[in-house]
């Protein structure tokens, strides 16, 4: 197939798929850029219920562990200064564990199996795990 015939056959595919690729790439790049934010509170939610709000700026450099109960299995979180991660989870795919340390509001951790979401953002008014305040 010549290039001309190829473009004639797949012109509309190229236009539609190309547009979608450009839009998706734009959003992906935007979300990949780390934002300088003063928000260092990790909000942990299970379904629509807020479980924890942890002020990460008050944490020490050495990680400490927190165990929470997901919908299906318990999950172990690790928190250190300005970062949080899921170190253990009973889910099959372990995507939440692969997400690693997160310190930016653009990179939430989601465990679909346990219905748990962890996102860094503004304080939600819950009990602060770091200070107990």
């Amino acid at each position, binding site marked *: 197939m010549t290039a001309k015939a190829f473009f004639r056959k797949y012109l509309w595919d190229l236009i539609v798929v190309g547009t979608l690729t450009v839009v998706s790439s734009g959003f992906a790049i935007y979300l990949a850029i780390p934002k300088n934010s003063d928000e260092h509170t990790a909000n942990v939610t299970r379904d629509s219920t807020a479980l924890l709000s942890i002020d990460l700026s008050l944490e020490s450099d050495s990680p400490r562990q927190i165990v929470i109960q997901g919908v299906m299995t318990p999950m172990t979180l690790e928190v250190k200064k300005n970062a949080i991660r899921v170190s253990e989870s009973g889910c099959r795919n372990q995507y939440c564990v692969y997400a690693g340390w997160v310190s930016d509001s653009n990179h939430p951790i*989601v465990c679909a199996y346990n219905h748990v979401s962890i996102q860094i953002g503004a304080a939600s008014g819950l009990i602060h795990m770091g200070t107990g305040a």
Partner: protein
Amino acid sequence: MGKGKSVHKIALMAMLLALAVALGVVDYYIPFPFVPGAKLGLANIVILVVLYELGIWESVLIDLGRVFIVGLVTGRFGQMGFFMSLGGAVASLLIMILLKAVARKMTIIGVSACASITHGFAQVAVYCLFVQNLTAFYYYPVMSLIGIATGILIGILADRIRATKAVERQKEHYGFNQPKKEAVGPATLTPLSPEHEKKEDDKNLQE
């Protein structure tokens, strides 16, 4: 459609459903590392071929049947994962049907890519509805990029399968998805007019 063709179609659809279920189960056990919810969507090859070669209702039947049976086989039936799959399957099938009907200049490859993106979007939307939290939408741009790549791959495979002799043979023998031919009656002999008869006789004499 005659009784023979009807029985053949039911058997063919049962085989295609079994194939879609097998591919769906294989797909379930192939994790796509680091991106939650991203899958190859191998079963979509069957759905695309059925949509283009057999028709809309056949593809709806096979797609929904696949989701329910894969849910039962993998033990996810009634759980959030099952509803995410169901939402993704319904949304992607709707987009495929719509694009096939409206965007006639798009090929099966473009339709597959769009369906794949829609599948991912619907899955994330169902998850967000379940947990009433929009956090998972942060994953969607990356998921959609992977969806475009896998959708193109699945579309190419479906296109190649449609061009195989096996599919051609099915179409030739059973006329699936073919325009109905006008009924042709038995051949009849029409008597020649006296002038034509005279001409024919002259020709024979000359010879």
